[in-house]
């Protein structure tokens, strides 16, 4: 564990060298939630939106979503597929006595924490300037369960993106695939509207797919919109998805690594 922590800390130094780039990516990711807040301000006329949602709770939702996106959404698929597998950078990981999955995980943590800090700063600014628009009633239990769900969400997101990236062992170019995954994620992880607003069929589909468990549910839990038994059910499903993805990731790695040619190295 000590060794693990030391490696994480060393990677922080690397990420701090790229802090400006990280900030720009964070700002880019804000365009969606901020423009949706503006949209709902006009559409709701400041009133009740139904299904227990008000303009202020929806604003809180999008701000928490931006925060969760910064903290929890991994973007390793391009690095794994393009740089590591296609360009052969995987060599430098394979030659070292450390698991590829875990070293990529460690590399990702500082980026998420840095971006998450930007997200927290944004949330604080909103709380100071527009306190009436941010509605969060936190209890210790909600914080604990929300954090647990968030950690699981990050693991699911990371492992899922790793799986997408590993497909590059077999396919020449998977950029189309990860763009498709991004679009599906935007819809089914609640980036556009909370999933409660979906028609029932679409809502049921979104509950079955893994995307909501990567970001949506931790946000909803923190907003206090779920009962305790519902939270435990979500956490249970998150465990199931994580286990499934870990098995798939392991199988793809074992098979795929035999296809690796270390081209360009």
């Amino acid at each position, binding site marked *: 564990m000590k*060794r693990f922590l*030391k*490696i994480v800390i*060393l*990677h922080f*130094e*690397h990420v701090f*060298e*790229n802090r400006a780039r990280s900030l720009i990516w964070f700002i880019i990711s804000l365009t969606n939630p901020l423009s949706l807040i503006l949209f709902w301000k006009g559409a709701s006329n400041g009133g009740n939106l139904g299904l227990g949602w008000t303009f202020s709770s929806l604003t809180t939702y999008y701000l928490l979503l931006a925060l969760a996106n910064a903290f929890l959404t991994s973007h390793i698929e391009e690095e794994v597929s393009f740089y590591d597998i296609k360009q052969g950078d995987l*060599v*430098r990981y*394979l*030659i*070292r*006595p*450390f698991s590829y999955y875990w*070293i990529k995980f460690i590399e990702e943590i500082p980026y998420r924490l840095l971006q998450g800090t930007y997200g927290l700063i944004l949330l604080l600014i909103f709380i100071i300037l527009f306190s009436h628009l941010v509605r969060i009633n936190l209890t210790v239990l909600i914080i604990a369960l929300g954090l647990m769900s968030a950690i699981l969400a990050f693991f699911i997101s990371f492992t899922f993106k790793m799986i997408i990236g590993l497909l590059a062992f077999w396919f020449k170019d998977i950029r189309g695939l990860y763009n498709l995954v991004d679009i599906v994620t935007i819809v089914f992880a609640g980036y556009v509207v909370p999933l409660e607003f979906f028609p029932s069929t679409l809502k049921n589909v979104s509950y079955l797919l893994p995307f909501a468990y990567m970001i949506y549910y931790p946000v909803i839990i923190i907003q206090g919109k779920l009962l305790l038994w519902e939270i435990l059910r979500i956490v249970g499903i998150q465990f199931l998805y994580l286990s499934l993805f870990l098995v798939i990731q392991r199988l793809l790695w074992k098979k795929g*690594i*035999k296809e*690796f*040619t*270390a081209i360009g*190295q």
Partner: protein
Amino acid sequence: MAIIDVKNLSKYFRVYKKEPGVLGSLKSLFNRKYENSKAVDNISFKIEEGELVGFIGPNGAGKTTTLKCLSGLIYPSQGKISILGYTPFDRKSDFLKQIGLVMGQKNQLWWDLPPIESYLLNKEIYSIPDRQFKETIEELAELMEIKNILQVQVRKLSLGQRMKCELVAQLIHLPKVLFLDEPTIGLDVVMQQKLRCFVREYNRRYKATILLTSHYMDDVKELCRRVIIINQGGILYDGLLENITKKYSTHKLLSVIFESPVKKDELQSLGEIKLYESTKVNLLVPRKDSNHIASHLMEKFDVADLNIEEPEVEEIVRKIFTAKIV
């Protein structure tokens, strides 16, 4: 027991063959033809502890593919490899802690941070105790003359400095087996020389087993007693470098300086004239007759100086590569 033991190693790559033109593209939509391209074809060799072996061959000969198989990066199609008793592709932690791979001009250091930060990362990854790390860095930095640049951003270093730092990064865990793939590529002659000295010293000091590929014959001549020559995936020669000349060179070069000019006609029957400048002549003669012809020249002409020279190793190797001999 040999440290490196390779038996019947083959590596094939599946290559897609496309017919030329639009029609070929259309056909390939429905029916793609694949062929197995042999990168390494049934090679076997053994390397003992502490040996420094040159692995040479032209581009595409299979050198790097072999090295990748030996270091566990790619999966062999056939054959068996044992390194320090491990199968490389299993990539067991204990195996990886005992090997090092340096690929020329490939950056493994953090670009935006000083080399020392990458070394610290390797220290943790390889679980090197603090004291050993300090001593090793001290020793390697001194040997490589990089003490003054350990705290400079990698992106600010010259290619030569970077290569030295890369090499140190791969040696922090003091690997018992080291694979060097074109370590001097792109470096100027001074830096090449320094790197060679370092490799030799590392081999001597740590009794490391080293397999080196290089396009520069100087690297091989200066460092390796034994060479393995590979071409088109197969081994053409495996033995002492000095024996290549005896085995493959059928001729010797007589370099003669005469006291007074000698007519060309008088020399033509003795061998092939490679250089004729009045009193200075280079004569290529059959190896077995060289002593006899040299005596004949001394007796018949006024010879100021005469040398019997072996052909350059580069020349022989070039001929082996182009299959003019063997």
